[in-house]
């Protein structure tokens, strides 16, 4: 178990030196501003493609800034905080944003999102996510949450002539605003009972018997569960996933969830570690209901993206199992799971984006009919991703689930682990259904592959990671096991 008050071991870095800690965020923000001006005056015709290329460039530089600035500490008068864990989350977030840029590079036209503002909003949202994982006060936490969410609401509605896109954006905006209201109310309760919004002060107070703090914490947890679409707060996810253009769906499914899970880990493992006993019951309920809704709800879906939405709800349930375990093993299991999940989703979305039927992107599961006859390689890739999502050894998804359930058993949550494995078996049903459709059913209209260099690279990369995960294990081990909160 963890000892408390580790936060205080980090150094307060005052003044301008502290700003160095926030170098990736500052770099992304400033270069986005410059990029906007460049876009207005210089990129006349190829506005989207050029800003997209510059965006990729900015993200790569920010990645290396986050990687090569190894210093840890507290800056901006205790509002901002960099630890090894937050750096780890920043790196995965930047990686997923990099994938979003690559996926959208040549697909903006057909998806109807060809606005250079797409790239600006993506970069600004990234800025919010990076601040979110290293926030050290409830006020920074809330503002960063809004900064990462607001661009996403706009991006959902980018496909202007599509009524489903507008519906998705409105739903996401209203429910997101509601959940932000929950979080704010929780924060105000905690502020009222503790007298401070700083994470250090909150973690130093013994919180066990305080009704108000517990109530505030429940509200915060409910708001966060909304944002990571964990059941019973998942209702928005299928509609939003279905309505938004595919590159943005991929974005919603990965980066914001990773960042919010990052700060949730920090809240649970550090700030509220004193009342973990009260918390773990709540998280068990969240996790079990997510697994239930995710595995049962996906069975009846016909739309491919709705199915992915339900599957992501189920995966959130599996990740929360690691949160329940409340041990170093559980923490590492979550980190493994997030990496694996990111690469798997990248592969699946790259395949969905590259396939076309009748000059339109595919939408339904039945559109995959005859994929094996037309394009054997792509169908085998999709088969591997589906098996991996279902958790079949020796593919990467198996290791994620194995580590998560192992950590739960290690901490004595036997029933939770057994139920998790059961739900995992149920969820294998709909992954196998997709495989059946593409291998054993035929259709008259052929599927066309419109894959370009970037998308082929992403498919190959995620194939490599998910097949050879056991071989890459030592690298990830080195990355993850050396990470302290």
């Amino acid at each position, binding site marked *: 178990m963890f000892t408390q008050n580790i936060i205080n071991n980090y150094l307060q870095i005052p003044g301008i030196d502290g700003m160095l800690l926030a170098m990736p965020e500052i770099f992304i923000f400033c270069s986005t501003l410059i990029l906007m001006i460049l876009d207005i005056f210089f990129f006349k015709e190829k506005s989207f493609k050029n800003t997209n290329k510059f965006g990729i460039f900015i993200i790569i530089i920010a990645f290396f800034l986050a990687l090569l600035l190894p210093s840890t500490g507290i800056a901006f008068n205790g*509002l901002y905080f960099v630890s090894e864990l937050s750096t780890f989350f920043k790196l995965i977030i930047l990686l997923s944003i990099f994938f979003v840029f690559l996926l959208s590079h040549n697909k903006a036209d057909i998806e109807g999102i060809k606005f250079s*503002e797409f790239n600006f*909003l993506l970069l600004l949202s990234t800025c919010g996510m990076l601040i979110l994982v290293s926030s050290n006060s409830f006020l920074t936490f809330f*503002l960063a949450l809004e900064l990462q969410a607001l661009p996403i609401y706009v991006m959902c*509605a980018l496909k202007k002539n599509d009524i489903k896109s507008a519906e998705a954006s409105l739903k996401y905006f209203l429910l997101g605003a509601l959940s932000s209201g929950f979080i704010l109310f929780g924060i105000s309760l905690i502020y009222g009972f503790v007298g401070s919004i700083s994470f250090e002060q909150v973690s130093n107070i013994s919180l066990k018997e305080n009704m108000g703090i517990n109530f505030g914490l429940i509200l915060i947890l409910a708001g966060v569960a909304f944002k990571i679409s964990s059941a019973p707060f998942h209702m928005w996810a299928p509609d939003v996933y279905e309505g938004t253009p595919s590159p943005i769906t991929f974005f919603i499914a990965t980066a914001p969830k990773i960042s919010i899970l990052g700060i949730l880990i920090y809240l649970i493992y550090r700030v509220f570690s004193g009342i973990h006993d009260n918390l773990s019951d709540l998280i068990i309920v969240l996790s079990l209901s997510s697994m239930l809704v995710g595995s049962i709800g996906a069975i009846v879906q016909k739309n491919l993206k709705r199915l992915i939405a339900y599957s992501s709800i189920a995966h959130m349930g599996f990740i929360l199992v690691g949160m329940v375990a409340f041990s170093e093993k559980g923490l590492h299991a979550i980190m493994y799971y997030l990496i694996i999940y990111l690469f798997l989703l990248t592969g699946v979305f790259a395949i969905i984006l590259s396939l076309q039927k009748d000059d339109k992107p595919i939408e339904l599961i039945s559109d995959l009919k005859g994929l094996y006859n037309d394009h054997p390689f792509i169908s085998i890739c999709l088969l591997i991703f589906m098996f991996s999502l279902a958790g079949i050894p020796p593919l990467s998804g198996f290791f994620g689930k194995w580590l998560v359930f192992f950590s739960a058993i290690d901490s004595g949550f036997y029933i939770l682990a057994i139920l998790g494995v059961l739900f995992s078996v149920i969820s294998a049903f709909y992954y196998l259904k997709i495989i059946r459709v593409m291998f054993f059913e035929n259709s008259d209209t052929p599927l066309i592959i419109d894959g370009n260099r970037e998308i082929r690279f992403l498919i190959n990369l995620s194939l490599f990671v998910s097949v050879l995960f056991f071989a890459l294990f030592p690298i990830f081990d080195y990355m993850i096991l050396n990470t302290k909160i």
Partner: protein
Amino acid sequence: MYYSMLFYIFSFFVIASSIGVITSKNPVYCVLYLILAFINSAILFLFLNAEFLAMLLIVVYVGAVAVLFLFVVMMLNINIEEKKSKFLKFKPLSIILGSIILVEFLYFLIIDNSTLEKLSNTPNLEQKNNTISLGNILYTDFALLFQMCGVILLVAMIGAIVLTLRKRPGVKKQIIKNQVDTKKEDVIEVVSVKNNEGA
């Protein structure tokens, strides 16, 4: 004596104009009463030495929110009769909510006085101008948060522009650049017409 009399006068105006908001039949009058209530409560803030909050109330609520309300109310052609019948439908709910708030206020005023006394123990603000002290905190201790609010507003601006700006083909529009760039030679042709030969 003089001080408390002024306080009671302005409080009376706040209550009277709030009653006006919910009772007057014309929605435009409702909004005007609302503005009156805001200005009077701003004056009440001045009594507490909170001059920054008072100005903020006038600038934000009167200057932006209430004027926006006024525009919307004037643009929507609300039928007065219909409005009245809808209000009556919510009467039971509003009575319940109002009585809950009344009970809460009475509890803190009469039974549990200690919380109120703790809260009213404000620091002495007479030496320090509170606009200056707010500025000092906002631009030093909370500079990061201030900047983040700025970025959020920037995102809102970009979002509003990208969602509403659309270029439809075939729409006749004034292009100011073309108008300004036009030279005399392009549009005026000087023709010397001979006598008796013009059309």
